[in-house]
């Protein structure tokens, strides 16, 4: 695991950019301290020997469920909750 002292504002900013969050300087400072605290406490996971242990993505084994491959019409109005639309389309921000 990452040593807690390697967590700095720059890393928090990089993570926030990836997550599409604009953080204020105050938030970056606060989250840096808090993330250090949290990851320091979570280092205890290293004590558990997990060699040859399979990860559990779910609590129990989940099998894939397939539906019939046929098209269906919406039974509801997909644009009902958007304020940004043009005709029958969602209107989004500029891509470039």
């Amino acid at each position: 695991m990452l040593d807690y002292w390697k967590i700095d504002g720059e890393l928090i900013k990089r993570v926030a950019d990836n997550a599409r969050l604009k953080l204020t300087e105050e938030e970056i400072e606060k989250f840096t301290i808090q993330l250090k605290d949290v990851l320091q406490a979570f280092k205890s996971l290293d004590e558990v020997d997990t060699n040859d242990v399979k990860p559990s993505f779910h609590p129990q084994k989940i099998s894939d469920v397939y539906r019939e491959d046929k098209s269906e019409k919406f039974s509801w109005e997909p644009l009902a909750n958007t304020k940004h639309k043009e005709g029958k389309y969602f209107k989004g921000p500029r891509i470039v």
Partner: protein
Amino acid sequence: MKLEKISVKEFLLRTKVGDLDLEDFSAHVIENSRSIQKKYNPFITLKDKIQAPQKKGKLFGLPISVKDNICTKGMQTTAGSKILEGYIPPFSATCVDNIMNEGGVILGKTAMDEFGFGTFSINCAYGIPKNPLDTDRSCGGSSGGASCITAAADFPHIALAESTGGSISCPAAFTGTVGLTPTYGLVSRWGLIDYANSLDKIGCIGKSVYDVALLLSVIAGNDPRDSTSLNVPKEDYTKFLKKDIKGMKIGVPEEYFEGVDEKITKVVWDAIKKLEDLGATYEEISLPHTKYSLPAYYIIAVSEASTNLAKYCGMRYGLHLQLQGNFDEYFSTVRSNGFGEEAKRRIILGTFARMAGYRDAYYLKALKVRTKVIEDFKKAFKQFDVLAAPTMPIVAPRFDEIEKLSPIEVYMMDILTVAPNLAGIPMISVPAGKVGGLPVGLHLMSDYLQEGKILQIANAFCL
């Protein structure tokens, strides 16, 4: 009409034979709920008028409150977040449809920590619910509104709640109500606003064990629209409440008493002794990976949450701003305005734990530790019917005490509830006694799909 102290069971017997004026009753319920709302704030949305039941059924005329992360057609659903303000789902969750098909009526949408991110219902965009037993104290989280209205209501009612890491058990313990979290996959998650898909479970909070068993009988069942829904036949869970508990074996995990308030420990041990008097036997056992369940839970939960929350970007529903700048700038501005502080913190943590270079050390490691936690339980359930422990290490804290806690100190409060949630096993919290006038929860856990066993013991204990 005198409705004080009328139980859900008695109410349903009376509505079944038409011995109750439902219009009068509904008016009383709304009036009472409004007064509760003024005092304790359990609702994000409270209906002006209760609609007449759609059908005669198991819940005919019974008011049900719905946690605000469960979709209700035509009724605002925010998951407690500003980023979903104004969202009107065009469909209802499967469990809500099931309730209405059995004649249940929706009373309102209950307050919660934003997306379920919290232990005390203080991360709420629409006001904090207060504990009806002491308004300076939390009613627990994240299903705080659900426990609040259940504890405060003088009318028959059951709350539909949801748990990811303890969000049903904790508020039930803090308010002296009964909270049932079913096996992962027993209740369809279709129409639930996800926090962490591999952990989320819809369940119930009620005044009695009968109430939660009844509601589970209505909401459990396979749903083709949820691919993780278990293919098990529907059951009437109230049938388990008639049996005695002679010969049942209870395991008491020693790790679940470490760091627990001494007075709480005594109340829980007294409860276990009472179960022994009723004919059960108990033995102390060890679940050695308990302390690792907390970091494993948080890493998995925030990793899943950070991907789930990626969809909120101000385009299709919820918070919209003026379309300005390119997509990166617009999405980031909407998200930074719409998410509260705890949501941002969990997005940062979860994005970090899944990032290239850190993923194996955090996310994958946590999933492997989860396997060890599940193995602990599997081993225990070979020997025992039920495990018994305190639900929470403390009684409901005061808001001024909560303010002083750092995020990691808050996360640590979940130490007793995260392991069974990681394993997806059923659990129930029932009031076991009081410390300083505040309720203490007894937590009973059983193996997958063995809801009957915890209901049976919980019912015998509460009788």
